């Protein structure tokens, strides 16, 4: 479940709002979410931040409830320069995120498989480093596909 239109290498953003607006627009333009999705994600990010101190490569996983989602998908952006996100939970820690994986989850049964495919990605520093260092979005897609296959074999 990868849409190469939503895999972006080298986005440069002033702050997390800009990054989320960028990802939200891509999801919207490609028909995965409705027009209210981005604002809903921004609102949620302010209340429940999603920065994660992942090993090697810090990241953020902005998302919202399923009400604005038409079809489950994710948008992955490798930032040119780290973008500061607040850490998930009740800390005041800031995370200099190098990768953003913006989630659109429709709440259906299939989203479980989708989420399980992404789990290893989050906690596996080597995969994140390879994605960060990949030279273009094509290479990132190849890494993700490899990874998805790995997960399907495991289940």
């Amino acid at each position, binding site marked *: 479940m990868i849409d190469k239109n939503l895999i972006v290498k080298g986005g440069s953003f002033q702050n997390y709002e800009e990054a989320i607006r960028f990802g939200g627009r891509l999801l919207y333009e490609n028909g995965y979410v409705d027009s209210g999705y981005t604002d809903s994600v921004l609102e*949620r990010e302010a*209340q*429940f931040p*999603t920065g*994660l*101190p*992942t*090993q090697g490569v810090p990241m953020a*996983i902005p*998302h*919202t*409830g*399923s009400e604005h989602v038409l079809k489950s998908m994710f948008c992955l952006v490798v930032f040119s320069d780290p973008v500061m996100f607040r*850490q*998930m*939970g*009740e*800390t005041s820690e800031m995370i200099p995120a190098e990768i953003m994986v913006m*989630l659109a*989850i429709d*709440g259906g049964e299939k*989203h*479980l498989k989708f*989420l*399980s495919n*992404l*789990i290893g990605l*989050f*906690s*596996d*520093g080597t995969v994140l480093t390879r994605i960060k260092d990949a030279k273009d979005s094509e290479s990132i897609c190849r890494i993700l596909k490899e990874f998805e296959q790995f997960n399907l074999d495991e289940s």
Partner: protein
Amino acid sequence: MQEKKVLICCANGVATSTFVAMKCKNKFKELGINAAVTTCTSLEVKSKAQRLKPDLIISNVGKTISVPEGIPVVYGVNLLSGKDADKTWEEILACLKTE
């Protein structure tokens, strides 16, 4: 062995709680722990915990959630990030030990 109950909450009850639930299910299976895993939102967690009476609550939104007295709360974010996840697993497994 009596079945243990684990309740996992996050902001929407759909994304990070599902991640952590899957990690828990795999871990419990691997260790032969008989535990049911349920997910909910941070708003539902109090009422759900009252009904379900879980042995443990894992929260992805921080530890200051409002829950019934006596139920331990573990902060689940390390399970998402992988950083210090071992410590979090220790905390979780300690809550599920049978007396």
